[in-house]
């Protein structure tokens, strides 16, 4: 059972891929400028889908800040939780 996706986990996941400390992750940064590539995004997508957020690569890749990512992820998580209920 994967760890539930929370803001803290989200930040930690990003930090891992950006070679930063979680506290140093700037959520307003553009994923492209932060140095992510498509493979890293695909890997994150797989991880977050496993945690119940039904997002696609294109949906993440077209967004221009990490905070937009979280917004999308939290919507999808809520949707999933709703669907489960």
């Amino acid at each position, binding site marked *: 059972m994967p760890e539930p996706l929370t803001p803290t986990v989200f930040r930690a996941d990003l930090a891992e891929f950006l070679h930063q400390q979680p506290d140093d992750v700037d959520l307003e940064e553009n994923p492209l400028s932060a140095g992510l*590539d498509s493979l890293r995004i695909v890997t994150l997508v797989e991880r977050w889908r496993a945690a119940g957020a039904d997002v696609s690569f294109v949906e993440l890749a077209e967004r221009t800040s990490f905070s937009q990512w979280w917004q999308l992820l939290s919507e999808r998580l809520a949707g999933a939780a709703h669907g489960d209920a």
Partner: protein
Amino acid sequence: MATPDRVGEHRPLLAAQEGTWAGHQLDPESPAYNTAEYVRIHGAVDPTAFEKALRHTVAEVEAVNVRFVVDDSGRPRQLSVPDIEWDPHIADLTTAADPRRTALDWMARDLARPVDLARGPVFGHALLRTAPDEYLWYHRVHHIALDGFGLSLVARRVAQVYTALVADEPLGESGFGTLESVRQEEAAYRASERFAKDRAYWTERFADRPAVVSLTDGQALPARTFLRRIVDLDPEETQRLRTVAQELSVTWSDLLLAVTAAYVHRISGAPETVLSLPAMGRLGSVSLRVPCMVRNILPLRVAIDDRDSLRDLTARVSAELRAGLPHQRYRYEQLRRDLKLLGGRRRLSGPGVNIMPFEYDLRFAGHHSTVHNVSAGPVDDLSVNVYDRAEGAGLRIAVDANPHLYDETDLAEHQQGLLTLLRESVAGPDRAIGPRRLQTTVLDGGPLPRPARPVLNLIAGHAARSGGVIAVEHDGRSVTYAELFGSARDLALRLAARDIGPGALVAVAVPRGIDAVRAILAVLLSGAAYCPLDPTAPHSRTKALLDSAQPAVTVTTSANAARFAGQPILLLDAPDADPGIRAQLPPSGASEDLAYVLHTSGSTGRPKGVEITHGALSAFVAGATQRYGLRREDRVLQFAPLHFDASVEEIFLTLCAGATLVVRTSDMTDSVPGFLHACDRLRISVLDLPTAYWHELAYTVSTGTAAALPATVHTVIIGGEAALPERVQRWQATFGASVRLFNTYGPTEATVVATVAALHETTAPGDVPIGVPLPGVRAAVMDGELYLIGDALSRGYRGAQAADNARFAPLTRLPGSPRAFRTGDLVRVGADGGLRFLGRADDEFKISGHRVHPSEVEAALLTQPRVRETAVVGQVLPDGTRRLAAHVVADAPAPTAADVREHLRALLPAAMVPSIVRFTDRLPRTSTGKIDRNALTALTEEQSPAAETTGGSLEEAITRLWAQFLGAERIGPHDDFFDLGAQSLQAIQVANRLGVELAREVRVAWLFEHPTAAQLARHLEHRSDAAPATALLDGVRADATLEEDIRPVAPARTPDAPRTVLLTGATGFVGPHLLTELLAATDAEIICPVRAASPAEAADRIHQALADQQIPLPACADRITAVPADLTRPNLGLGADRMAELAETCDAVFHNAATVSIMREYASLRAANTDSTRQLLRMASTRSIPFHLVSTLSVAPARSQSPEVPEAFFPPHPGLVRGYQQSKWASERLAEQAAERGLPVTVHRLGRVVGAPDTGQVNRRDFLWSVLASGIPAGIVPDLFEAEVWTPADYVARAVVRLSLTGAPGTVFNHAPVPPIRLADLYDWVQEYGYAVTRMPLPRWRTDLPRSADVAATTGAFFDSFTGGSADATGPDLGLGHVRADNVLRGLEGTGISCPPADRALVFRYLDHCVKSGILPAPGERQL
């Protein structure tokens, strides 16, 4: 708001597309930019629904509904096209023996077809059923339209639409964005601060323009195909890789990048690698939802040294990526321009690593599928493509390679090497990647049959046991073994009396003869070592050697004593004063004692004394004696001067075998026949000759006239330099195995000879091995260089510096680290396990990225019949230009330099063809008889100024154009266009302009290969024989001017039903059809001028022409009037009266006659083709009657000049190179002027006219059919063109007559109403008909085609004349752009006249006819 492109609208290309377009222009006939993948659908598919889904999706993808055109300035534009005509290929292959193989073969064939961007479609689809419940959906698209991600978007949508169709649900929206939105985004980016920042990042990161290394030193233009090797990592291995990546805090792609970089380092040894990373370029972009081409390439620098571990490297790769990725939008092509890294051989990055993380999880109506890449586009060098396959299946690694640079073996080796390194580093991520592993091959000569015995013991034994046998003979004198040994002992005692003994060195300066042999033996018997000096050498040389060797005494004769004034000497011919002591000889030399010191000239010119011990000498003698099979009955000629080590072989092998040494007299070598006679007289059985002398001898004896090899000679040993393959072949042809011929190789440092090849046993022509090591010797080949190991090695150089002796060092890479001598010679191991000598490592010359061994070029030169000897040297000009110069000795009649180069071009890469070929009577040789390469290099340098001068005007034309396009004031002849900032597009423009100015073809690729004006001019000049002179075209232009007095009377006659029609060319291939058609369509009398002696003969010829094509004589044949005529003569040979009469009576002219010859010059065609038109126009003008000219589509410019062939008259253009084209163009031009003056003219351009379908007739004089007729029986067919228009003769006659009678005056008709037939299809059908044919490039076809058959000879001659003996590998450009035929189609609308398509059935009918009429053998019969 970005809207979809409107149909018919021209749009600029995206930057990525421009890059692809420019690349495509370098070789427009290349299919390299075709990318393709197939989706294996695991389940049943409804083909109808699938086709519907494909058509629906294709219509939704803007990027593929396009054509590409060029605007007036030469810039490419994208034209949105409606209703692209295309059909998917849907086939059920389940009945094939191996359906999947069949499917893949089909894909390979489809992929190999070039796409015409001007015409399209740029894509193709196929649905192939390979099992009852398995379908392969194949999707090909030109890279200019879609990139890999674009393909995936299309695939997803097809799956979606198909699924909806099957479920009968709404198809929904595609969700695709517009191309315009991508263009707008790109424009905004280019204007943004981000763009400036990105540019700053990259130009700074690459400011030092790092050296780019790869797995090969070679570079080549992109090939048309690529080699691919695929390996799948299993899930466990993939998991290990992922786990290690995670431990290292990187992704698996970083890990693969690091390993690839490390592998490049391992192979190249370079401290830095620059990888090419294809980047999706879509993050944060609207293009995430647009199927299009935006892919970019990131250059990734990775510094590496041998101590780095995988951990170090992945961290470095990851950091470099994080720094570079934010700037990934900046175009790679732009960066190359910024850095001036375009053209020539400049590179920004090396091998590619393409990571494909996108596993499409596509379901087709519920069925699972897997995606497989077929082609990822052109491969410049080497590319590692990594695909992450469906869940848990593991990674797939496909390594693609440019076949110009790698062969299958190289590729397999690299793939294996890469995998091994991957596995090693994943197993130990903290272990150093380790230094480059060099490949070492060891050849072992095997052990000596018995321990080597000291030479003095062997000779003493013969003296003791067979003392009466003659040991040495010279000039009528001889000594027995007993006498020789006895006198040598006496002399040894005289030396001993002077305190000469072990450890001392004695110079021997005695002319060849019995005394010399005695002196040598005496020195050895004294325990000292001998050092031979040439008694005839210049004083300075003698002094230098004495200084170097420091002999204790010099043994010489009174005659030479003066040379050694001031040195202690011992005179052979004068007794010493009695020293009063009784000297004693030491026991014979211990194996570590020196036996002799021989001098070689070092690379610095300072002589180096090579010290050979008794142990080395006896090891050599034992090994060589066994190898040569020397016996005591033998009589061995002593040929070599004593200061050559060949003399050691002759003297010691002979005396140790108890045989007889026959010393040659100095006059023996005055002439080769004299030498052979002397050998005969002396009953020589073994000849040991310097290779250079043997070359002369082999030449003489093989011609067989002047002299023969004496019957007594059973063995010839040669050595000293590389034997000429041509002489070896002559020798083998003369003697076969009857005379043993040993080719030897060996540096003095390894005691005379190290390897031997028995050339009488080897047979492959052109192959001259140096064989395998002697017993007791081992040869190690490392990185191509030869190392020798064994007891026969020298002790080292006398008194030499450590640097020199470093050549003798333990070979640590071999077990036991044996002492080895590094020869500096480059060799390779042949398939037979024997060595081949390639040249000196020092002579190796790098040019245009190629490592050139002059010997390879020499070997190629020597394959040319009249080339006898040659030497090739590399040279660096003061301006840094590197080039090769060939010095050639040729037999009369000597070939020209152009012949020589042409010959080489067929055998060698362009860079290896010498730019200078100099003929000479003899090659300079050093004092040791070897070719003096230094002297040759100097010669080349002296000559360079003259050689540099190229046609000034040509150079000027090139620089002027470039200056214009680059906005530069002045460009020098040696300025590199691309250094000056030239871009691909400009190169294309300049090539076009230059082509027009010079009235000849100038290919874009040539500008890249020859990036300075001087080089390009030289290249163009070398090809000048292929180009028409501008003057000739001027002549054509003059002929194409219609005289002022040819003016139709006004007004033109309105065409009512003609009563009399003049038809020329009624006896040709189209003529009979025109004739019957005119009879059918009109009530007119048809007057047919025919070349004949009488009216009866003229009528006969017409009847024959009809019969030949099985056309029944029409009922109204009485309306035909055949008139004897000759179109090449004034008044068409009819006489002025008859001509005037015709002018009065004819109501229309159909000028169809022409001499069709693709080989003849314009001058020989102008009367028949051009002047006849002029005469007929004059005749027609008198009453302004309609004039219809039958012309040819071959007057059109080639596709490279014009993407479209309009239905309009052409201005002069550079494509008019053949006489026939020129004559027909001039005819059209005349008709055009007449039309302008008011004559009702129509022009009908025909494509290839083929026989009427119902008869299946074939025009056997037609060019294509003659090519087929010669190629098919030989099993080979050439790549002539991509596609061409075919119209059957009966159809085209109907169309011409109808359009002539109804068309508006001045109209040009291109009779191309159907899509062209693709050559690939034609050849496929030929195959299916039952002929096994192989397609090949034209030049190879020309070479491979047997020249025996007449038809083959003619066709071959055509191509030879076409390319004018030039080097170009691609042959004539026979391809036209898109042929417009709107006038024809409109004119025939509603007439019921329609052209049957050229399909498989039609081609089969033609082939039937060919078989029936004997043009071709029936399938299955092979002509010999």
